[in-house]
């Protein structure tokens, strides 16, 4: 019986603390909760950082099936340059992590990407059992890092292992219903197909404060009892990955602080800053090539000559993401936007290509009344608003070039009463959002709308936005394909070669690929550039500029 239950639970033995301090310590290092002291040369440090960065890029870049991607990573890890990552947990591996934490974690444009990539690496390692979580102590150490302070002081432990037989019936009811996705894959791996026998499989369970498993509480995938959630130990990998992500997010902030106040901080900064900057630049360069390679555009680069100017604004409005559409709409209606809205929209337009004179002209026309509802006189515009616009272009005050807000930044700016900035997928209630998506983005497919509102309701606004983008691109893509087909047919009849062939060769597949792999919208300008690119591909618009940009 004991043997059987061990097999069924996939060899997960969590029932008691092993008391093996060494094992727990190793796991702490493996999860980068602590860093061991030591010394190495700066050159080594940079080398490790670069190698790890390359690996993470490979990991997040691959558009391969998960299994193929894993094989690829496996191959990479075998090559001598990456050997240090194989010693895991090990000193060099840890240091490569921490140098990237400093370099990319504190870099607004890379932070989200880096955290996701590190999460993927950990997932890979968990799947390959490079890190095996056998002892409850190591899990508790991670839980302590992510738990809110008042829970750490609670009388009950943060993580309690309970044998499956002691779990109440409701736990299994939940696992058969909404909780099934949590254990589905693992059950399959263990060779179980049905859920009829869950009770007798001896699945160990964890009991954790519900605050630590919000992603599952939200969707009612767990059973809650007096503030504690019952989590099947089969889902331990997902549990750890979720906590790890939270931990890294906090870790990036603390790393920066520690760096600033470290002993001999100035000396440290002097020596490390070149390395950090180099790593950041490496990341940015990679991102640029990747964007070109897959036909993805980023506003910051604008490689395809798709700069937007005031004269083309009206034609470009359908390509804009919902947040900007709503701000423009609001601006047209009321003739005014509050500070947050002006910043969000103004910087977006600037990033999209507006010159200073475009911006000044645009706002002069658009702002008809001031915050008190009185018409704006010319001198008032100069005094109150023109300064801010010039400031955004780095011509006033601190004279720094202000980048457009990323989605992360926009999500952070919650609008107050009377304000309209922020992310509509986060701020609008479901009916209003649906209405906005229908009227502004002209998305009519109920499946699409369903998906969009569902992600919005699930607190994943960037995914909801990606849904809109996908829908918009598909709409254009389809039309493009249809027309292309028609054209080809005509040309076939006329006996000439298809001129659009070149276009397909350059864009076609990569474009489709990037649509399929698009999971999050990270920047409104990226959304805009994607839509603009799709427009350039539409027949009937001048294609030469777009082609020149790629074929350079």
């Amino acid at each position, binding site marked *: 019986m004991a043997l059987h239950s061990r097999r069924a639970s996939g060899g997960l033995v969590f029932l008691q603390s092993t008391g093996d301090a060494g094992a727990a310590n190793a796991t702490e290092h493996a999860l980068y909760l602590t860093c061991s002291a030591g010394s190495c040369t700066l050159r080594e440090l940079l080398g490790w950082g670069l190698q790890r960065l390359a690996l993470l890029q490979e990991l997040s870049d691959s558009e391969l099936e998960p299994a193929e991607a894993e094989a690829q990573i496996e191959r990479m890890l075998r090559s001598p340059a990456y050997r240090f990552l194989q010693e895991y947990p090990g000193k060099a591996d840890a240091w490569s992590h921490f140098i990237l934490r400093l370099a990319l974690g504190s870099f607004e444009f890379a932070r989200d990407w880096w955290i996701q990539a590190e999460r993927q690496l950990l997932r890979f390692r968990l799947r390959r059992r490079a890190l095996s979580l056998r002892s409850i102590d190591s899990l508790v150490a991670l839980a302590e890092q992510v738990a*809110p302070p*008042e*829970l750490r002081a*609670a009388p009950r432990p943060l993580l309690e292992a309970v044998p499956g037989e002691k779990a109440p019936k*409701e736990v299994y*009811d*939940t696992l*058969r*219903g*909404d909780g*099934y*996705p949590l254990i*589905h894959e693992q059950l399959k791996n263990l060779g179980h197909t049905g859920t009829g026998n869950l009770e007798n499989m001896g699945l160990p369970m964890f009991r954790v404060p*519900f*605050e630590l498993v*919000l*992603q599952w*509480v*939200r*969707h*009612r995938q767990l*059973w*809650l*009892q*007096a*503030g*504690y959630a019952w989590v099947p130990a089969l889902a331990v990998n997902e549990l750890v990955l979720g906590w790890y992500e939270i931990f890294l997010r906090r870790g990036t902030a603390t790393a920066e602080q520690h760096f600033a106040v470290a002993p001999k901080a100035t000396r440290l900064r002097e020596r490390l800053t070149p390395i950090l900057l180099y790593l950041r630049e490496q990341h940015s360069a990679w991102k640029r090539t990747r964007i070109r390679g897959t036909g993805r555009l980023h506003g910051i680069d604008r490689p395809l000559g798709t700069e937007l100017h005031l004269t083309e604004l009206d034609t470009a409005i359908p390509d804009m993401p919902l947040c900007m559409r709503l701000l423009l709409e609001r601006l047209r209606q009321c003739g005014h936007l*509050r*500070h947050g809205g002006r910043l969000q929209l103004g910087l977006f337009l600037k990033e999209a290509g507006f010159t200073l004179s475009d911006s000044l002209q645009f706002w002069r026309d658009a702002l008809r009344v001031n*915050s008190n509802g009185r018409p704006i006189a010319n001198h008032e515009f100069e005094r*109150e608003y023109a300064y801010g616009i010039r400031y955004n272009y780095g011509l006033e005050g601190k004279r720094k070039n202000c980048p457009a807000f990323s989605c992360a930044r926009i999500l952070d700016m*919650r609008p*107050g*009463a*009377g*304000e309209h900035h922020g992310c509509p997928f986060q701020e609008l*209630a479901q009916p209003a959002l649906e209405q906005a998506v229908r009227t502004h983005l002209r998305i009519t497919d109920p499946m699409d709308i*369903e998906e969009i509102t*569902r992600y919005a*309701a*699930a*607190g994943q606004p960037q995914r909801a936005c990606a849904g809109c983008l996908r829908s918009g691109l598909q709409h254009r893509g389809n039309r493009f394909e249809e027309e292309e087909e028609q054209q080809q047919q005509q040309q076939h009849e006329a006996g000439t070669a298809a001129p659009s062939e070149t276009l397909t060769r350059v864009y076609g597949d990569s474009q489709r690929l990037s649509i399929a792999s698009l999971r999050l919208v990270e920047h409104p300008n990226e959304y805009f550039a994607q839509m603009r690119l799709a427009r350039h591909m539409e027949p009937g618009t001048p294609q030469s500029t777009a082609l020149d940009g790629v074929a350079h």
Partner: protein
Amino acid sequence: MRKRVIAETAPGEEELADQVIRIKANDVDSGLAALKSCALPALSRAESLQRYYAEWFPATVLAQWLAGRPGAEGEDLLSRREFSCEADDGSGGEKRIRYLAYQDAAGLRAEFLRLLPLRYDIGPVYDASPRDRYRRINKLEPVERELVFDVDLDVYESVSALGQSEPAGAAANFADDPLRACADNWLFVEAAVTVMEQALREDFGYEHVLWVFSGRRGVHAWVCDTRARQLTDEARAAIVEYLQYRGISAVSNRSSLSSTFNRTATTFLHPALRRAATILLPFMDRFLEERPSIWADEGAMDTVLGMCPDAQVRETLRRFIQRSHTRESAAAVWRLALEQLDSKRLDTDAAMHIVLGLLYPRLDVNVTRQRNHLLKGPFSIHPKTNAICVPFRADQVSKFRPERDVPRLVPLVTGDAKAQKQLRAALDIMEAFVTELYRADT
């Protein structure tokens, strides 16, 4: 005297302008009309408010409640708590003043006596006193806040209208007395309070839930446990999502999401939903009893049965109800139909989705989601109905009747014995709640 916040608004600093929101007079005309019609000629509105804040408003208990556990470390939370008032701006309009804060009950009462708020709201505890916000470099960050829920009968309109023969009558009632219109639908509030109480206590382990009548058409819940007060916005969003029932489309959607395995989520109701459905069954009987001819109404029946995700169950119910609704009462037909399902070994859980769709609590998620959302405080006045937002006991919700148990401002301050008794009862509830909350051994 403390400097008023609006006085600090310097011209040109328009980010600050949101503290004072002037509402045009005609927006609140209806409210003012109601107010005036209630006011006895002897007392102006200001005088009524003056008396209320001087004699009845329980500043001491409220301050005690919001100050946190007496003697606890981390000094006093009251001075970092945001209050917000809506008051007469002296020219027939109203102004909202945000970021007020008080050291103690005396300060609170003194300022309320000066401002004479038409209503007041409670915000979060910030990391510093909201009054000091311009002296700081960083923006104020909310650090603590009760977990609050808002059940508003307005969102029940689609179901409460089902099978009601004369909606016009209800509208007439409403103009007459908004609280009576609320009473017609109190069933939904009772159901919501009962279900929420169970979920908050059993699932989340919270013990201190204060229920407050919102003054017009709904109730608010204030969960005051320490663990609840310290929840992040993200956790609040997850909790309110957990407590939401989104009906059939969401359910079918979830199962299509997980297309890797072909199963319907409807087959296994989450235990929390199953418990809710069990609680709601008696309410379902009452719902149907109040609507004797609901099954005769094709449209209503379509809506009701449309909430059932299983086509076979739906059709069985439809056939059975069409056959028997002329012979039995609406509630009896429903009970028999459930038995019928059972005897045919059909999925009764699918029928439970109907009960959930009709009666499961409908929450305003935005109130709960963010810590810095303002919510009308207990013993505030509702500016439109003139009712006092009194707390009530959850276990007495079925006996609580807004039109009977809620005191109104004017009778209260003009010496109406009934209104005074009502308010005293509410004060007792509030005091008992605070005492229990800060009892030494918990």
